[in-house]
Each structure stands twice: as structure tokens, then as C-alpha cells.
């Protein structure tokens, strides 16, 4: 396929499919609960963490990426819990910090780590993904499904209205932090596909597009991963065909999916009191 052997194509396709589905699925929560700024902060924290892993060279960058993303979630979570306005301000401060750290770590990385390793953190390199790394993604995917089953009802109530959920007996703080850490982990393990600069696109845009197609949150949850997979696979094929960085190609396709959904949305064609 495209002159590539199947032992490269298969993990690439599987990796793209899993990342596209997972990022878009959690992106549904991020978009609905207006946590985009947190998602942004976690994706750049994951980038800085992965760059640290590259620098120290003795640990797989994915683990340091997870560590940094989780630490960011732990630091910003309480602020988001108390006041969303303050989160935007803090995220505005953390973004240059994490980007600067990431670039410093890359600069300090051993010469063997620079080049393809550093570039893959920035732009993504799903072509270099191994089956072992795909197994990690599968593990996270299965764990995500488990979390969604275990906390699905709490999340469902949280998505409607947080105060109403809490007043009905849902432990909203627990649900919120479980969700936050889930997003952090998924962002970190997905770095390899789109890179730290553009992972945010895969998390937000397909989910935002899904909301254009349905008034029913259950349908949004089905549509978002499908759009994420579409964007991932389209981006992968585009990058091969046009010889473009894969992360940027996926981000382009995410944008196309979003703007296309806005333009074609059935919500635009209904009256003010649609059925």
C-alpha cells in the first residue's frame, strides 16, 4: 500500500484508528463541559514530558508524557473545579512554560535523540509506530471503555448540568477528576500520532463537529469517534500522497471535518423550534 510493507502499514492504520477514536470520544466531554483550555494545557504538558523522556534517554518518552499530563491535570483540576475563568488565565501562563520546557529538553537531548525523535514529538510520526506501541494504545482503549462503563452514568449526568447532577446525588468531584486524568492519559499516549502541537486538534475538532449533527448526546458519542477515525485515516493518506507531515495532515483533515459539519449541519436548516 503506497509502496509500504504491511508491517509498517498495519500498526500505522491501527494506531491512527485507535487514537482518532479515543481522542474524539473524550473530546466530547471536553467540548461539552467547556474544558478546551484544560485539554490545551494537558496536550502541551504531555509534549514537554515526552521531550524530557527524549532528553534522559533511559525511559520511553510516553511515560514521561503521561506523568506531565497527569501532573497538569492534578494542578489545574482544582482551579477548574472552583472557577473556570481562572483556568483560562492559568492556562495562558502554562502554555509558554510547557512549550519552553519542551524545546529546552529537545535542545538538551543527546544528539541521537534529536532529529526523528524530536520531530516526532512536534509533528507526530505514526509511520514509526511499532506493534508494541499499538498494544499500549489498545490497553488504554480498553481501559477507557472500562472507565466509561463504570462511570458512564455519572458522566452522563455531569454532561447535562453539573449542579443538577451534584444535587441528585452524583459524586461530581470524583467523576470530574476521573475524566480529567483519563483525558491526560489519552492525550499523552496519542502524542506519537499527531505530535504535541496538534493533538489538540484531534481532541476538539471531531467532537465539535459531532455536536453539529445531533441534539442527542448519545448520538454525539457515536458520531465523534467515527469523525475522529475519518480525520485520522484521511490525514494519514493525505500525508503519504502529498508527502506532508502526518500530524499537520491529520489536523488539516480535522479542520475540514469541522468546517464541513458546520456548513452541512441539519441544525442550520431547522427553524427555532425544530423537532
Amino acid at each position, binding site marked *: 500500500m503506497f509502496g509500504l510493507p504491511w508491517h509498517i502499514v498495519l500498526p500505522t492504520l491501527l494506531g491512527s484508528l485507535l487514537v482518532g477514536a479515543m481522542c474524539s470520544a473524550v473530546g466530547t466531554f471536553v467540548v461539552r463541559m467547556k474544558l478546551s483550555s484544560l485539554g490545551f494545557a494537558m496536550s502541551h504538558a504531555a509534549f514537554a514530558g515526552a521531550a524530557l523522556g527524549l532528553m534522559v534517554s533511559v525511559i520511553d518518552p510516553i511515560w514521561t508524557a503521561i506523568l506531565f499530563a497527569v501532573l497538569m491535570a492534578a494542578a489545574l483540576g482544582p482551579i477548574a473545579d472552583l472557577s473556570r475563568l481562572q483556568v483560562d488565565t492559568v492556562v495562558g501562563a502554562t502554555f509558554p512554560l510547557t512549550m519552553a520546557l519542551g524545546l529546552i529538553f529537545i535542545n538538551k537531548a543527546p544528539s541521537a535523540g534529536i532529529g526523528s525523535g524530536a520531530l516526532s514529538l512536534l509533528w507526530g510520526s505514526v509511520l514509526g509506530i511499532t506493534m508494541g506501541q499499538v498494544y499500549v494504545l489498545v490497553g488504554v482503549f480498553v481501559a477507557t471503555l472500562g472507565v466509561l462503563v463504570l462511570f458512564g452514568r455519572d458522566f*452522563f449526568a455531569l454532561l447535562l448540568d453539573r*449542579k443538577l447532577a451534584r444535587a*441528585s446525588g452524583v459524586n461530581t468531584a470524583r467523576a470530574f477528576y476521573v475524566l480529567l486524568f483519563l483525558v491526560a492519559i489519552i492525550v499523552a499516549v496519542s502524542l506519537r500520532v499527531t505530535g504535541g502541537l496538534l493533538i489538540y486538534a484531534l481532541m476538539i475538532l471531531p467532537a465539535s463537529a459531532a455536536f453539529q449533527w445531533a441534539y*442527542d448526546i448519545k448520538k454525539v458519542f457515536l458520531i465523534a469517534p467515527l469523525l475522529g477515525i475519518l480525520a485520522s485515516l484521511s490525514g494519514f493518506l493525505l500525508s503519504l500522497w502529498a508527502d506532508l507531515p502526518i500530524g499537520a495532515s491529520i489536523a488539516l483533515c480535522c479542520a475540514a471535518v469541522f468546517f464541513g459539519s458546520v456548513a452541512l449541519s441539519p441544525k442550520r436548516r431547522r427553524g427555532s423550534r425544530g423537532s
Partner: protein
Amino acid sequence: MDDVVSLIDVRATYEGERHATLAGVTLSVAATEQLAITGPNGAGKTTILEVINGLLPIASGTVRTLGQEVTLASHRLRTQIAYVPQNLFFPPDTPFLVRDVVFTARFGKTGTRRLSSAEERRRINRSLKAIGISDLGGRPVGRLSGGQQRKTLLARALAQEAKLLLLDEPTANLDPEAKEDVSALVALVRRELGAAAVVVSHETGPLLDASDRTVAVDSGRVVAETRLGDRVSTSSR
């Protein structure tokens, strides 16, 4: 019969506020009673509801609801309390159907098991039918009128099988006909559930007229109390 709500000299302050929002409130609600709380804006009416439900911690005093001391962690207790907040309005882009809004009230009853069951669907349909909004079940809640959204929340309270209703300005911003409608539905829900209700309202109307007792709150204190019999005997003079 024991009171379902008991507040004794309760003081409470919202975070960041210098002055106490509740400055020593004592009141109680008997089982199956409807208590109305009136007062000007900022008097502490909503705060009383939040304290009863454990959504706001108290600085001093005691709060017992449905026989239990209330804290921020009283999640299980809240599954027995149907709280309809003030000014809860779902914007047009809210991605929830009416049926799903009512469904969220059932979570505390069944824990974190699978998302749906035939019995739960039956209970939800029964609640929608009792409130008279069966035809709205598949509609996006954000596309409904204010009165229809209030009815959805009452169907939700019914589906929750709550023992106590806490309703904050349930008829605010509704036209007179909708006010009568909602008031009648509150009475129906109370009857169906055998529940007590605490209703906050700053305006007169059918909901206040139907209350067994009314307490007036001002500056975080109870300043007056009237019973239905007193109001009737006063109005007949």
C-alpha cells in the same frame, strides 16, 4: 411524625463573602408538608435550600434532612431529594432529549450499572405521562419553552421518587397560565410521592397559596411565619 427537615440556629457563608448569608436560621418541615419561603432578593432563600441539600457547608448550627445530618459528602442522601435550582434553563444547543434529562434522575437509584433497563424506561415513561409531557420525550430539551422545561424538571423529580422536593422559584418568568399549570403539577408530584416540599418564591401566586406554612426571610433570618389557616382567616376578615 418526625420532621423531614430541621435547621437549628444555622449560620452559613458563601466562600469569599464577608457577611453571613444565613445568620441563625431555625425552621423545620414536617412530613408531607409544603413550606414556602419568601423574602427579598439576597435574603438567603436559596441558601436555605442549598444548606438543606448539603450543597453548601454550614459554619454553625445543625441541619438534619430526612433524619440524617447533612454534609457536603451526603451523596446518598441527595438521591432522595429532588432539587430544582433557580433559573435553570437549558439553552437551545443542549444535546439532551427530554427523556434523557428525566433519566439522569434515576442514577442514584440504580448505581453505576448498565445505562438502561426496561424497568427504568417504564418509570421514566410513567413520569412523563403523569406530568402530561409524553409527547415531548423525544424532543431536545433546549428547544422547549420555559414552562415545558419546568415540567421536564418536575417529571425528573417524580422519576427520582424523592421524599423531599426543593423548588427554587419554580414559577419565575412564567405567564399566569403556566404558573397555574406548574403549581398544579407540584401538588401532583407531592401527592404521588407522599413527599414534603420546600418552595422558594419571591412573588405571590398559586404556589404560595397552596403552601401549608410560609416563612418570611430577610437578611439571613426568619422574620415571620404564617400558616394556611391564618392566611385564610385574615383574608376572610
